[in-house]
Each structure stands twice: as structure tokens, then as C-alpha cells.
């Protein structure tokens, strides 16, 4: 069989995502795409891919997969707990996240829980050999759009690889993990801040909210002070973007993310700026959020800053060939390296 990764266990909700499916929103087709576009770019950079190559987006708990190719180079970007073991008499060894690894046929990668974020990204050098659907490899599960029938990974899923082998060049590591920033989430008020009472706008910009358990790729429902509308929540349906904060009749804000519908009929008090979308895409239930208003000029400067942060890590990628031979298990056990890959014995 042609080179592929064989999924032994799918994880909680693992999907293929790229930067999204643009150009069809006028037909009601959501953009979908990576919740954390910074993580997607860094994972791709670690294996030498183009920035928007499709990756596995791993939510909460990762898949277990077996390498069915002579060799493959993969990288996982994000705070993961991982297990890796060689099928052929596997000596226990540990591998880091945020760097690439050249693996061989029969190797089994067991990806555990994402530790401090809701998503992480797995890239393979050369990318997955899958046919785009409407110009994109992003998966939109609600309408079954995307590769693999628009479904998440399942037991037995075969992920074909474009590259039959991996080059024997050095693996690469991020110079430092991505910094997603802290402090209040930055928003621009609008498009319908006038639908809310002055008190509601003031409350929104001063209160603390918590991401509820109703959080998925479509959006984050927040718990916290309710926001009152001047004359009801309904508007003539209009267009939406990721980051829109809509407030239905119960007054509880919902931040829309990648799988949001293209249009909506609830008033939107504010929109999260694009520089803070990766941070929100990673936000887990229980995360506390507050909001601060910025101007469009400040938003644009923040986005430029985020790009520089991403690019600084990509230009700073360092070869890690010298690491071979180091007892990584010892490093892991002594907690000197973060985001380690643990190891299991082969079958």
C-alpha cells in the first residue's frame, strides 16, 4: 500500500484543517480551518512545509497512529503529552513536542492529552495526499465537508502521505514555544454595540467571563454578567467573522470561532481582533477572559506583532541532530525539557 499513517485510535476530535475554505461564504459555507493559525504555521515550518499545508488539528486528546511508510518526518506543535515507541523492539525513548522527528515504518505515536490548550497541530513533511474539497482540506463536520468525507479521524482511517520517505537532514526545533500573550482579549466594538444598553457595554468591558463547557470549533459560550439589549437581540441576519461576539436573548455572550455560520441574526457587541484569535482558539473551558477595546490601528499593529512573533520562531528554527544520543528519557524524567514525548514498547 502507498505510504500512509494508519490511525489506531482517533483521539477525542481530530480533524484535518488548513487555513480555511474561503470563497463560498455567500453560499452559506463556513470557512472552518485551524482554530490556532499560528500553531498550524509553526507545525508546518518544523517539517519544511508551506505555511498553510493541511495538518491534523488535535483537540483535547490525541490519536494513536502507526507509520506505514519507509520513513516520515512529523512535528507536533502545542503543549502535548505524547508517547512514542518503535514497533521493532522499541527501546524506550522520549521525544519533545515543538520539534520534528524522523520516524520509521512500524513506529507508533501515541498522542495523549493536550496539556494547556484545547488544540495542537501535527504536520507531516510533504503533507497529506488528499484531494481538496472546494479548494481546501479543512474539515467542516456539521455538513460533512472536507477530506475523509468531512469527518473526524476514526479507528482505521488511512492518511496517505505525499512523500514516501523523509530526507535524512537534521530535525528542527522551535527556539522557544509560541507566546500567545496574556491580559485582556482585545476587541473592537461593533458591529451592533448600539443594540446594547450603555450599562451592558460598560459591563462587557470591565467584567470577567469564564469559558463554559459549551465550547467547540463553532464558538465559546461565556459565563458571566448578562448583557442587556436595548430592544431585543434580533437583527436582520448579517455576515459574521471569527471573533464576533454575539449575544442572544439570554444575554450570555458567545465568541464565534472557525466553524461559525456565515450569517447570524443576533446582535454582536464586539469583535475580537485577529491577533487574539489563536489564543481564543486554544482557550479551554474554565479559562477566564476579560475584554479591552482597541482601535483598528491598534488591532493592525497587534496583528503585525503576532506575525513577527511567528516569523521570529520560524527564522530561528535550529537543527537538533546534535540531540541524538542524549538520554531524553532522563531529561524527561528530570523535567528539564518541556512538552516531552514519552515512549512505549512496541507490540
Amino acid at each position: 500500500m502507498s505510504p500512509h499513517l494508519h490511525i489506531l485510535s482517533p483521539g477525542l476530535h481530530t480533524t484535518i484543517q488548513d487555513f480555511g475554505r474561503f470563497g463560498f461564504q455567500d453560499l452559506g459555507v463556513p470557512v472552518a480551518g485551524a482554530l490556532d493559525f499560528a500553531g498550524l504555521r509553526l507545525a508546518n515550518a518544523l517539517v519544511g512545509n508551506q505555511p498553510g499545508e493541511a495538518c491534523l488539528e488535535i483537540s483535547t486528546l490525541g490519536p494513536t497512529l502507526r507509520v506505514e511508510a519507509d520513513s516520515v518526518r512529523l512535528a507536533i506543535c502545542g503543549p502535548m503529552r505524547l508517547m512514542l515507541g518503535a514497533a521493532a523492539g522499541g527501546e524506550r525513548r522520549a521525544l519533545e513536542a515543538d520539534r520534528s522527528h524522523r520516524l520509521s515504518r512500524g513506529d507508533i505515536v501515541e498522542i495523549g492529552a493536550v496539556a494547556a490548550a484545547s488544540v495542537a497541530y501535527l504536520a507531516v513533511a510533504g503533507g497529506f495526499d488528499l484531494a481538496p474539497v472546494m479548494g481546501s482540506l479543512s474539515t467542516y463536520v456539521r455538513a460533512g465537508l472536507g477530506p475523509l468525507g468531512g469527518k473526524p479521524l476514526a479507528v482505521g482511517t488511512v492518511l496517505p502521505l505525499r512523500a514516501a520517505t523523509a530526507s535524512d537532514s537534521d530535525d528542527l526545533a522551535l527556539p522557544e514555544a509560541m507566546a500567545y500573550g496574556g491580559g485582556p482579549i482585545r476587541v473592537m466594538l461593533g458591529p451592533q454595540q448600539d443594540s446594547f444598553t450603555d450599562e451592558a457595554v460598560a459591563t462587557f468591558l470591565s467584567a470577567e467571563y469564564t469559558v463554559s463547557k459549551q465550547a467547540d470549533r463553532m464558538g465559546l459560550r461565556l459565563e458571566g454578567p448578562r448583557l442587556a439589549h436595548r430592544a431585543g437581540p434580533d437583527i436582520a441576519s448579517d455576515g459574521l467573522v471569527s471573533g464576533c461576539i454575539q449575544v442572544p436573548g439570554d444575554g450570555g455572550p458567545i465568541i464565534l470561532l472557525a466553524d461559525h455560520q456565515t450569517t447570524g441574526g443576533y446582535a454582536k457587541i464586539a469583535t475580537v481582533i485577529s491577533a487574539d484569535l489563536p489564543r481564543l482558539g486554544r482557550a479551554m473551558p474554565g479559562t477566564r477572559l476579560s475584554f479591552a477595546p482597541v482601535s483598528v490601528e491598534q488591532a493592525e499593529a497587534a496583528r503585525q506583532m503576532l506575525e513577527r512573533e511567528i516569523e521570529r520562531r520560524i527564522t530561528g528554527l535550529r537543527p537538533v541532530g546534535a540531540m541524538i544520543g542524549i538520554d531524553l528519557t532522563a531529561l524527561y524524567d528530570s523535567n528539564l525539557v518541556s512538552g516531552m514525548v514519552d515512549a512505549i514498547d512496541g507490540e
Partner: protein
Amino acid sequence: MDDLRIADLGDTAFSVEFGEAVDRTASAKVMGLRHAIDDAHRAGNVTGLVELVPTFRSLLVSYDPLVTRRRTIQAEVMAVAAACSDAPVTAARSWRLPVCYDDDLGPDIDAVCRAAGLSRAEMIAVHTGTDYFVYMLGFMPGFAYMGDIPEPLRLPRRSTPRVKVPAGSVAVAGSLGAVYPWDSPGGWHLLGRTPVTFFDPARTPPSLLAPGDSVRFHAVERADYEAACRDPGRLAPEHLLAEGG
């Protein structure tokens, strides 16, 4: 176009709004501006444009903030709007779509007839007697909001939405009509069902309907409906265009 208003959607989009009313006048302005911006974009006069999403009374302009700046693209769009006429855009395509109005396929027929004070035959005559204009798509891929539903058939949404509305269900709510392209939850009143496929990612374009299209329904017998369900090839888009449509 001097009656427009710009609303912010962060640093990746803004909305050009034309008043509050949902009607053909506002829609004509939205669609007119949409086509004008598309043309200007192709001519290289709008940079960084990602997508245009027309809705009832506004046009979403989304852009790449790493390619352009808000100040720049907003000025480019306003220049297009200033030169844009308000002349109504004629319907892009006219569709004729079969509907079977049997009770099990349109479970709200009785309720709608009672509320409207119409017999079933009269209700069908009213529903099939109008050309509906596709204002916009949204809610789910291929879901078209069309109007305007004639006065007697205008009802508020069901107080309790259905958990599952079958794909192909032909529905009304208020002044709007729609067909559910997928099985989904829904709160509109169901009058019948069409065997037509409204969304197919393998087709170009994937959605049967697009904003600006016109739709006319016609009643078919159960046998014809079922035959069409068994042979979807008969319902390929090219067979559904009205004469001259």
C-alpha cells in the same frame, strides 16, 4: 449610494449597511455594490479583498489585514460605492422547483391552512403563484432565504423548533421561505418537500441557489416526487432552470 453606513467587524472585515428594512430596495443596493466591488477587484482597484458576503441589507467585506489596511480598503470600497448606481440587479437565474405537498412531507400544511383561512388547494395556489427572490444564503451551506411569501402564508416561527427537519423540506416563516438542504433542526413551518439536491460539493458551483436568483415552485404528485428521488439525475441543475432563465 449616499445612504450607506460602515460597521466594524474587527480588523478583518467591515459591513456596508443600507438602512434597517429587509426589502428588495435594500437588497438591490447590496447586490449592486457586491458586483461593483467584484469588478473593481478584478480590475486591480481593490487590494487585499478576501470575500464578499451579501445579506438582507448589508454587504460584509472581508479582507486580509496583512495585505491591506482598513483605511485603504475602506476608501477603495467607498470609491466604488460612490460610482455605483442603485439600478436593481435583475435575477441571475430563474429556477422552477418541484414540490410534493403531501401531509407526511409537509406536516404543517393543516396548521398553515387554518391560520391563513385557505383550503389546501388555495394554499398551494398561493405558494406556487409567486416568484421568490433569493436575498441571501446562510444558516448552513446552500440554505437560501427567499421572499417575499404572500401575506396569508406569513406566520411567526413555530414556538417549539423541530429537532430534525428532513432535507428537502419546503418551509415558510414570516415573509421568508426556504428549503432545508440538509437534515437539521429548524423552527419554520413545513409545507412540502422537494427531491432537488441543493448542495453538492462536487458541483460547480456547489450550491444550486445563489443570492439574486429567482425561484418558482410547482406542485407535483407523489409518484413524480418518488420517481425523482430514485433518479436524481433528472434533477440536475440544468433541468431546473425556467424557460429563458
